């Protein structure tokens, strides 16, 4: 069995048996990055020596019989939106091309504590704003299943890296679907955690009240393992919740009895690709065959989610990104007249079009005279959306839906149509508004061979239920 095609759990078992070393595994993935990433474009930064050095350290400790972490020796790719001390952290933006953080994100600290090998930083839409990774200032990432197509976004580099077997696992961030949608497009597993489950410390903020860090992996058990490693309380993030982290990797294989799966009538509307629709319906059939009760539920305010989301996310982004002004760090324009002009030139040149579009939208929505009509109204809608979910989860355990309305679209196809691009997140972003967890699992392929994802959503802090339900489906599908 090849190294690169193996799951994280298999690789870990082989290292523990002594069949393989982390250096061999890391070397194999690094070699694949070298030979394939020119075509895929998943990585922005790879430090081969540093990765191999980490791997050798873990090998030595394991060989000496010393205690090693949960991810000991497993390569993990990290989206370039998380700070890694001493490595460039660019958010795929010209603005931060030269930024090297003097500190690790909490999640990166967790990866180090659990002895993961940081294999590289992955490409993304600039500041995580986008659904195709085409908004990267540095490179294009292709979908490994069809290089004419996008890998999705904004964690497109992480999803493509796992799909192209350049890494067994990756870290992404999800503000409106940025883990789940690329996972769906690339045929891998991606999980967006409950808001507050994982610390945001060191995650470069896009929209603080929506951003969450989460795992991507080539199977559900890998996602469970990685989540177990990164989740948990961090006093440096006031919004990170102090509650115990279940051992997801131990329970993931246990099927759920009497599972009640909700299906949302509002989801099956115009704009949903027939192949995606039939894949989701087939998945529901799988759950029925496993003894689950599939029932229809209502999310009456779902139709307002896109509007509310783009107001809230853009408003917060306009504030979070204001710090990139050329004064203290990062990009500064070369030519300017005075202070105000320096700000304008720096931000005009440093940010890409989509980022500027959202900053302007958010600035407008927070402006005096518009705040009540836009931002405040959006917050109220957000509350209603959360209430919808709370009500729905009174009668079902999980909600099943498409991840996105279509399989991966062509590179360039939606670049001139931001609104159509925004709609590709229509099924995912309400989980961010409600703060609930969601997972994307592979659910088959389209006629032209592109992956289709199934999304499951669960009540807050029910990641364990989500992973077990996803694993039930995965095992039955025989995908993983």
């Amino acid at each position, binding site marked *: 069995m090849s190294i690169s095609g193996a799951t994280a759990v298999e690789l870990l078992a082989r290292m523990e048996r002594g069949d393989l070393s982390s250096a061999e595994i890391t070397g194999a993935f690094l070699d694949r990055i070298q030979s394939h990433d020119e075509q895929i474009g998943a990585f922005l930064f790879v430090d081969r020596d540093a990765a191999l050095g980490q791997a050798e350290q873990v090998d030595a400790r394991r060989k000496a019989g010393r205690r090693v972490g949960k991810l000991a020796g497993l390569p993990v790719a990290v989206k370039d939106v*998380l*700070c890694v001390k001493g490595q460039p*952290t660019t*958010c795929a933006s010209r603005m*931060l091309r030269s*930024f090297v*953080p*003097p*500190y690790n*994100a909490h999640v990166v600290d967790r990866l180090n504590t659990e002895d993961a090998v940081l294999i590289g930083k992955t490409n993304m839409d600039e500041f995580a704003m986008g659904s195709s990774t085409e908004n990267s200032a540095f490179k294009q990432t292709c979908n490994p299943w069809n290089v004419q197509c996008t890998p999705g976004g904004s964690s497109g580099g992480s999803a493509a890296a796992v799909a192209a077997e350049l890494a067994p696992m990756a870290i992404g961030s999800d503000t409106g679907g940025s883990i789940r949608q690329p996972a769906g497009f690339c045929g891998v597993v991606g999980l967006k955690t409950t808001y507050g489950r994982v610390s*945001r*410390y*060191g*995650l*470069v*903020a896009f*929209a*603080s*009240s929506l951003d969450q860090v989460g795992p991507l992996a080539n199977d559900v058990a890998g996602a469970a393992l990685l989540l177990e490693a990164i989740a948990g309380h961090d*006093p*440096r*993030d*006031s*919004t990170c919740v102090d509650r115990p982290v279940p051992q997801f990797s131990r329970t993931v294989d246990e099927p759920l009895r009497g599972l009640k799966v909700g299906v949302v009538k509002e989801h099956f509307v115009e704009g949903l690709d027939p192949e995606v629709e039939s894949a989701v319906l087939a998945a529901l059939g799988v759950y029925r065959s496993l003894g689950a009760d599939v029932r229809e539920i209502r999310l009456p305010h779902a139709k307002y989610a896109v509007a509310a989301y783009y107001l809230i996310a853009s*408003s*917060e982004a*306009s*504030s979070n990104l*204001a*710090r990139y*002004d050329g*004064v*203290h*760090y990062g990009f500064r324009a070369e030519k300017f007249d005075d*202070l*105000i002009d320096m*700000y304008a030139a720096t931000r005009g040149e440093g940010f890409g079009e989509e980022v500027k579009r959202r900053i302007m939208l958010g*600035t407008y929505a*927070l*402006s*005096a*005279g518009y*705040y009540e009509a836009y*931002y405040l109204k959006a917050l109220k809608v957000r509350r209603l959306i959360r209430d919808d979910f709370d009500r729905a989860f009174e009668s079902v355990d999980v909600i099943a839906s498409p991840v996105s309305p279509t399989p991966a679209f062509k590179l360039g196809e939606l670049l001139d149509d931001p609104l159509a691009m925004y709609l590709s997140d229509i099924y995912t972003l309400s989980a961010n508004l409600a703060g609930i967890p969601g997972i994307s699992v592979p659910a088959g392929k389209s006629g032209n061979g592109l992956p289709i994802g199934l999304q499951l959503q669960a009540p807050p802090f029910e990641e364990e239920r989500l992973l077990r339900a996803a694993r039930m489906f995965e095992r039955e599908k025989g995908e993983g």
Partner: protein
Amino acid sequence: MNYSIIIGLEVHVQLLTKTKLFCGCLNLFNPDNPNVQTCPVCLGLPGSLPVMNGEAFRLALKTGLALKCDISQFTKWDRKQYYYPDLPKAYQISQYDLPFSHDGWLEIELDAKPGTTKKIGIIRAHLEEDAGKNMHDESGRGLDSRVDLNRCGTPLVEIVSEPDLRSPQEAKTFLEELKLLLRYLGVSDCNMQEGSLRCDANINLHIHTDDGHQYATPIVEIKNLNSFRGVEASLQYEVQRQISEWNKTGRKLDDPGVEKETRAWDPNHGVIFSQPGKKQASDYRYFKLDDPTLAKETRGWDPNRGVTFSQRGKEEASDYRYFPDPDLVPVTVSAEPIDEIRATLCEFPADRRKRFREAYDLSAYDVSVIVSQGRAFADYFEDVAQGCGNGKQAANWCTQDVLRELNERQRTIERFPLRPEVLSGLLGKVNTQAITVKSAREVFVELIADSETKTEQAALWKIDRLIEERGLAVVSDTGELEAVIGAIIEKNPKAVADFQAGKQAAVGSLIGQVMRDVKGADPKLVRQMLIEKMG
């Protein structure tokens, strides 16, 4: 012209916490070593997140309670957004519509009428983080400006008064009383030179015309007031400026197009000036505010030139786009911590003044001097008063002898060599007429100069020893006195003649001579005996 002056103050106070408001960096005034008290959080580096300092919130609650404010059960953090190089996140974490406290008051003593007080309303007090400091090149060589972020993230309480102040002097008194209160509480050192107390003033006039109408002049906000004198002087200047502006233009607050102006004050020249800058079209650079009733001009105060000047460039900052900070959770305050803090509050200066006047039968003036010296000094006075059993005597000594020594030696009462037990021991001897006041002063000076008197007991022994060595014990033996007086009269025929010719003053020099020979003599008795002898 008949007019009244309407003034409200906005005061920023840095809290005395060990660390900053949202990170673990030290909260210290450290201008000589820029950018050493910083971390990713207060530098606003990407991915960093704020975490509230509980001690800062506790000190803020203490401040709110001392200002008799209502404490909000639910309070939250908002981002106030504007671009400036000393603000690395491009927003300040502050409190907008739900401050932690509101609707209180502070009682001040009116200088014009000692003993009379006035309550000044407090609209709100909220907690926020301080910005850093821009350091501009002053060499004239056009060098780059620099930014020091040591101060960035320091906890600040902003206290906004009602426009209840009716004169520049009242404004100064209010600020002094506020400083005194906050220092009593130990929440801030209120050092205006170091910027731990900063003040902006809002002022306009209500003009009462002869036909019975009343008109309000446009509101002006004066910024950068960094001394108590500056507050008073700039407001006095602004009153005169607004009067002449009214006489010239008759412009009123509610005229269309009138907005709040910000001016700066130059204390050296005692005039307001327009800040030099680009686009010199007008002294008044108006900026739009959402609420026309809030319209006012913003002016800076230039302490070097003694003028207020209209501030430019406010257009960009006019809309702060406040919104709740999603990185911080709201704070809910229950009754218990409030009660707990209330229980730890010290006696406030205003209450102390009342109590001292009644308990020690002191004048309003003496009480005011004692209490305004700070909590430790007033404690000292009270210990002395209780120790010697005579409040008036203790007040005289504290406000004259002790204060003089402190001023001469540039010391605080905490480092004053005489503990209250020693001073009250000394005063006790005066009370029992064992020594004269004059002798007590001599002993007092000796005790301060003497290094032996480090311990209380040593000092008390030293008092007795000095009295004995120098013969300071009151002499009431008329036989001994009679002999000395007889000799002095013989030696001073001219003075005796003068006295007998009606010059009462002549007796003074004779008393002095007798006292030099018999140190413990009671001067009243000496005077009486001299007059009898010469008469």
